[in-house]
């Protein structure tokens, strides 16, 4: 199970900023994703965390081949997906599916649930013969915990959590190998979040799925992920296993993020280090030189403005971190509540 199913190499996605109506002049680039590399192994969940605007959703869109990367590659089993077209692209679309953030807008309001979940079969008719599709849709509804009798209902007749289950069923229909989840639970109630995450966990065990799980909520990511990547302003600042990131974070940004996670136990709350970051995220049009986090970092020195810290294993640490002064620091005093 150590085969890499997706390899991302130095992925860059810049959006031009233009001025003028008829004669458009490019006056800059939004550097949404700026040199990201990671691997996704079969059956693994990679969590991607970061605050709003750090390029998480752009990463998802490039992974889904909805946007062409400016530079770099996304390799699916060794094939560069942005170079695929025609039949090869169609086959790829079967293997990588997307679960979107907002279940209220990701389902066409004028299609029945049967049509929504059945649509992948119509787009890829080779996946299932016509006569069996209806039955497959019902199996999928049952699998995600919805009543198969509701096949003729419309999305507005369901709650948010149920709609997200419909979205998951749609993504599962073609039996993909990878599902990219773009903040799949952030639009849901906390109680519903847990249900949907447990469903995702169950489906992974059953089908051997790989997830790229994007979220801005660290505790949500921890619950599901085998490995976690922390993003800041288009770059990955720290990558590691769940324990490495949550118990032994070395990058200051990760430490600051973790210190913001609420601790449910009032007796332990006082033990927690609180790191307050000042200032806002700099504009991705003109990010700071060197380390992008230096403008808000309490450890920043001269070298941070001159040298871009590489994402590599540093002294005194067991996982890659993009900080010149990477240092272990325990933020949350206890392990995740058992």
């Amino acid at each position: 199970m150590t085969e890499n199913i997706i390899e991302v190499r130095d992925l860059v996605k810049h959006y031009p900023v233009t001025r003028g109506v008829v004669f458009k002049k490019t006056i800059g680039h939004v550097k949404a994703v700026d040199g990201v590399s990671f691997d996704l192994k079969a059956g693994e969940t990679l969590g991607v965390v970061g605050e709003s605007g750090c390029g998480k959703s752009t990463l998802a869109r490039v992974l889904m081949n909805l946007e062409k990367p400016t530079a770099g590659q996304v390799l699916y089993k060794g094939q560069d997906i942005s170079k695929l077209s025609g039949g090869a692209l169609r086959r790829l679309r079967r293997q990588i599916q997307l679960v979107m953030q907002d279940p209220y807008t990701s389902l066409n309001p004028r299609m029945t649930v049967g049509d929504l979940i059945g649509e992948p079969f119509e787009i890829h008719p080779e996946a299932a013969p016509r006569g069996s599709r209806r039955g497959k849709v019902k199996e999928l509804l049952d699998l995600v915990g919805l009543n198969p009798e509701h096949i003729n209902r419309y999305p507005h007749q369901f709650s948010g959590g149920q709609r997200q289950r419909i979205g998951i069923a749609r993504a599962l229909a073609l039996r993909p190998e990878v599902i990219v989840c773009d903040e799949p639970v952030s639009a849901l109630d906390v109680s519903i979040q847990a249900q949907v995450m447990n469903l995702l966990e169950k489906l992974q065990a059953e089908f051997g799925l790989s997830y790229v799980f994007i979220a801005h909520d660290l505790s949500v990511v921890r619950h599901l992920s085998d490995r976690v990547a922390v993003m800041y302003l288009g770059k990955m600042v720290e990558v590691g296993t769940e324990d490495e990131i949550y118990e032994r974070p070395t990058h200051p940004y990760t430490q600051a993020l973790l210190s913001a996670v609420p601790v449910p136990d009032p007796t332990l709350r006082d033990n927690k280090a609180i790191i307050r970051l000042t200032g806002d995220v700099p504009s991705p049009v003109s990010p700071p030189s060197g380390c992008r986090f230096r403008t808000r970092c309490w450890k920043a020195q001269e070298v941070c403005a001159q040298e871009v810290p590489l994402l590599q294993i540093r002294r005194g640490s067991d996982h890659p971190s993009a900080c010149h002064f990477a240092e272990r620091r325990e933020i949350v005093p206890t392990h995740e509540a058992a």
Partner: protein
Amino acid sequence: MSDPSTASIVSTPPAHMPTEAGSGAPVDAGLPESAQKEQKPRSLLGDAWQDLRRKPLFWISAAFIVLFVVMAAVPFVFTSGDAVNGDLARSRVEPSSSAWFGYDVQGRDVFARTIYGARASIVVALLSTILTLLIGGAMGIIAGYRGGWVDALLSRIADIFFGLPFVLGSIVILTTFNGSGTDNGEWTIMGLVILSLTVLTWPVVMRLMRSSVLATKEADYIIAARAMGASTGRIILKHLLPNCLAPLLVYGTIMVGSFIGAEATLSFLGIGLKTPVVSWGIMISEAQNYIRVSPFLLFFPAAFLVTAVLSFVMLGEAVREALDPKLR
């Protein structure tokens, strides 16, 4: 980890093992007859029809529209009167049991004229509405969905037509092809009127459709469809069109009414339909000189026109509601 394909509940095979046609057993084979019937697949159009069938408003407006269409097709079934020739001795005789709607200035039977007038009015209004919706809608979808230079080009072309004032534009078109001295047949004139109405109004529909498409095309469900590998045609037909149609339907039904009026305006100016062709518009414009002394001359054709317009508006409203699952 074991091979997921053997342990799974869902029987869709992974992509590397394509299903052979006919290999899947019917899943609901064991279900009793009644349960199968209950779970018949339903679609938006099927559901809309189910919903429409229960609406009295739909049946009333549809009945009126059918009546007017039959009137346009076979007017002689409804009346044996003469719509063209009159007897001046009966000029402006009031309605009576022998002539239900009375006689006009030329002594022609108003009832017969109203029935025969349906053809020109309905044909002109319906055909120009359909043409306008088709041309404007198609242009709007192309401009909105493709964007970029295609959008810029189509929008500028639309702006040119938009800039022509309606009356001036149709006077130019119709005096060129249908001026005094020309001897065009009834259907040629109708075709010219339809053409000038369509040419001068399609930009409105295009703008409506374009803005609708622009608002819808960035929706998550369109992105989801693209991520699944749906073709452009499929996205437009299945996702874009059903969600952009509502404003078009509403505008279209209003257009039917305004086109009947526009046809009357052109006839009044002497460049549209000409006697001996009858239309409600011609009757109304003739009647307005005698509105004080013989109001019934105006009343009957106007009543037919209002009923026809109202029927189309109500039908459009009922269809729009039926096509929106949230309103059912």
